[in-house]
């Protein structure tokens, strides 16, 4: 909109630089303008510097160079409280709410009270919350305790909190990552309403579709630098993805129809409890055949993690059966299950799969260290360990190609390649991949996806657990949806539509 040149930007960041210890340049001479009443998308891959840039604006980090102007005045926020006092509000990826407090209590937390040492009057607070939630369609009960609310509702509380504190400028960091498609639609409507009311919004995302449907302008960051700012109306998803990655990306994988063979994994009536001893999987049954990718979709926290653990032998099965390559592996040790033919790429790389302070070479032989050729006559064979590493580093293009590098120093994408390379090097019967591209840059995502399809074509059975619906749709031959520990329904690659999947993800059973 050319009118912007006439109005003054409400936020103007000029030549902002942020360097982290160790020399990482997270933001390099970034210029950004936000105009009143607009929704500006901040688009970029993981690690492009989006969140860092916003933390600089919000006073959580201090910049090394550059200027920030708010309504034309130079500002220098020393803390988030400083920023809040100037009318900024940020909704973080991880919510900053006290779960045992009510919505109203969370609103006044850390805020000065007009009644001195006493907290503000409950009814007044509740009244203001109701008024705000009515005005913007953010329906929440002020007296509800936060832990009782769904993730989507908690996010509304975060937005309300910002509004309650008088935010005119809202920053939302990847707000849709934890939502069902329907919740996403609701959120986008709410944000549009807020913008129409004159508030200015910065919307951080790496999802092209949301960005193009919601935002007025898009600022694209890559490797800490601003690639460019474009009007949404004058661009398309292909141009944006090119700007984001620096080259054209396959938005849709091309793959042959699957040729399913024999059943490699059969899960029957599986019951599993979570860490608190509450039932979290309640009678899950499904099969995965050789030569197919079965995608398990669902919003985070509906039993995916526990299913993954149970299949890997890391969590006790209360009831039911897991048959892997014809062998009953229910409640067997991880070692037995590995021997039976499971390749496990866990959702939490550093918690579960990698020893951060061990070398790439050592990590690549974690399961087989005591077997020949890695151990001979009781002693480790360093040459064999190194040879294995050299071969896998080359085959999977792990960078840097230094087999002695500590895994903790690798980027997310390369660390994931190490896990994937290790799992595949054992030629598993079933490959269990959970959130394979979480925290992985877009180039590596493409690589991981291509590898998965290649191995499927070679006849491997693959179970893909992912909360990224795009990923599920891209890769899966069959799609199952998990909701509160039960399978809501199944659809095939060609019949799947986002609408139906979204309904299932929100708990509607579709047969």
């Amino acid at each position, binding site marked *: 909109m050319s009118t912007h040149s006439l109005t003054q930007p409400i936020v103007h960041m000029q030549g902002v630089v942020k360097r982290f210890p160790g020399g990482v340049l997270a933001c390099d001479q970034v210029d950004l303008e936000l105009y009143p009443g607009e929704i500006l998308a901040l688009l970029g891959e993981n690690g492009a510097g989006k969140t860092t840039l916003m933390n600089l604006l919000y006073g959580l980090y201090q910049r090394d160079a550059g200027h920030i102007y708010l309504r034309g005045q130079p500002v220098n926020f020393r803390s988030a409280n400083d920023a809040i006092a100037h009318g900024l509000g940020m909704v973080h990826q991880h919510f900053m709410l006290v779960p045992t407090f009510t919505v109203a209590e969370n609103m006044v937390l850390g805020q000065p009270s007009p009644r001195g040492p006493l907290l503000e009057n409950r009814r007044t607070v509740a009244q203001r919350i109701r008024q705000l939630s009515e005005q913007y369609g953010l329906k929440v009960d002020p007296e509800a305790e936060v832990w009782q609310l769904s993730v989507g509702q908690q996010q509304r509380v975060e937005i309300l909190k910002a509004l309650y504190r008088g935010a005119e400028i809202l920053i939302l960091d990847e707000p849709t990552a934890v939502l069902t498609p329907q919740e996403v639609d609701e959120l986008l409507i709410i944000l549009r309403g807020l913008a129409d009311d004159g508030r200015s919004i910065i919307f951080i995302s790496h999802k092209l579709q949301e960005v193009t449907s919601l935002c007025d302008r898009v600022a694209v960051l890559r490797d800490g630098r601003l690639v460019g700012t474009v009007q949404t109306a004058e661009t398309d998803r292909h141009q944006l993805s090119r700007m984001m990655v620096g080259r054209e990306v396959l938005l849709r994988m091309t793959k042959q129809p699957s040729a399913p063979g024999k059943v490699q994994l059969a899960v029957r009536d599986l019951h599993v409890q979570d860490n608190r001893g509450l039932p979290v999987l309640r009678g899950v049954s499904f099969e995965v055949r050789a030569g197919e990718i079965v995608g398990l979709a669902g919003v985070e926290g509906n039993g995916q993690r526990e299913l993954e653990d149970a299949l890997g032998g890391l969590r006790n099965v209360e009831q039911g059966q897991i048959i892997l390559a014809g062998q009953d592996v229910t409640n067997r040790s991880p070692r037995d299950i590995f021997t039976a033919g499971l390749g496990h790429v866990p959702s939490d790389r550093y918690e579960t799969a990698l020893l951060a302070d061990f070398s790439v070479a050592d990590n690549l032989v974690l399961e087989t260290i*005591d077997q020949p050729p890695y151990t001979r006559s009781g002693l480790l064979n360093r040459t064999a360990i190194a040879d294995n590493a050299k071969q896998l580093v080359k085959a999977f293009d792990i960078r840097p190609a230094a087999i002695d590098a500590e895994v903790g120093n690798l980027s997310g994408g390369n660390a994931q390649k190490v896990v994937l390379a290790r799992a595949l090097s054992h030629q598993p019967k079933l490959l269990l991949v959970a959130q394979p591209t979480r925290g992985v840059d877009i180039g590596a995502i493409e690589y991981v996806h291509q590898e998965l399809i290649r191995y499927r074509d070679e006849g491997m059975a693959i179970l893909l657990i992912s909360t990224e619906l795009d990923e599920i749709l891209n890769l899966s031959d069959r799609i199952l949806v998990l909701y509160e520990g039960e399978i809501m329904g199944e659809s095939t690659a060609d019949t799947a539509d986002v609408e139906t999947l979204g309904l299932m993800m929100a708990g509607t059973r579709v047969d």
Partner: protein
Amino acid sequence: MDEITSSPNELITTTSPSHRFRPPRLVRLIGAPILGGIVGLLLGAVLIMLAGADPLAAYQTMLAGAFGGPRQLTETTLKVGPLLLMGLGLTIAFRCKVWNIGGEGQYFMGALAGAGIGLLLQDSLPAVVLIPLMLLAGVLGGALWAGIAAFLKLRFGLNEIITTLMLNYIAEFTLLYLAREPLKDPDSFLPQSAQLVGAARMPTLFDSRIHIGVLLALLLVPAVYVLLWQTPLGFRLRAIGSSQSVSRYAGMNVALGLSLALLLSGAFAGLAGVIEVSALHTRLKDGISGNYGFTGILVALLGRLHPVGVVFAAIFFAALSIGAQTMHSVYGLPIALAQVIQGLVVLFVLAADALARRIWR
């Protein structure tokens, strides 16, 4: 810090994208701790001055007391033995992140078991049979005592820090009771056991007081290195120390690994116990441990959980302790002052190390 970081910057940038100066590995490994040690000694000098002595002369006396002649060297070497054994055992445990602070108790139990066998059989067996038997008894005594803590950890999930610490007192007072009552030397008024003699005494080397226990400790240095870095067992112990959840995922038996690490460190402590009682004290009595269970923790940490580092740390602590005794007898400075200096040096060395790691990550 700015001085260090800015000047060599231009030289570095061509080879590394990092704009920070990062000194070579060896400097990072040794430089910072040495610097820390010097600061600790300087602070110690202030204390010596306050106590009314000349710090330079005092430190000279200390050095001479530890290394000044054959007699001093012998004393220091004898002290290195048990410190080295303790440090090596705890290196294994700490690498696996098992916090065994019960070295003291395991040492007592090793001494008790070894001396018990010695007292029982010293009249009937030759040294060549009896000494290995006693050493084995010491190893088993220490390992079993650590095994109690291992059992409590695995069966009931009790924290080994607490159980091993508590077991120290039980071990110590059990030994003292036995030395006073059932095992008491009938020919003595003192609360001590009968004396180990002849075949039950550690054989010495080359007409000196240096005994084969010290030699054994030195031989175990490469053994621990091989165990930790050249065998699949050591790999697993270190893997468990790095992350239990990852080790479990990779099919390792984490409970077994934790127990083994605890048992092995107990075995080393027990070995130290039997060697010291056989070579030095010759009786079960009060004060047969020079706090080795706790000093051993410092030796392991200062040696950065590496067998070679542990050798140097053991020498350092041995010299400090022997030197302090000389300083005490020559200048009349209290032994406690030497212990304070010892504490200062350790504190600053470890702090400098941690700081260096943060800065030059």
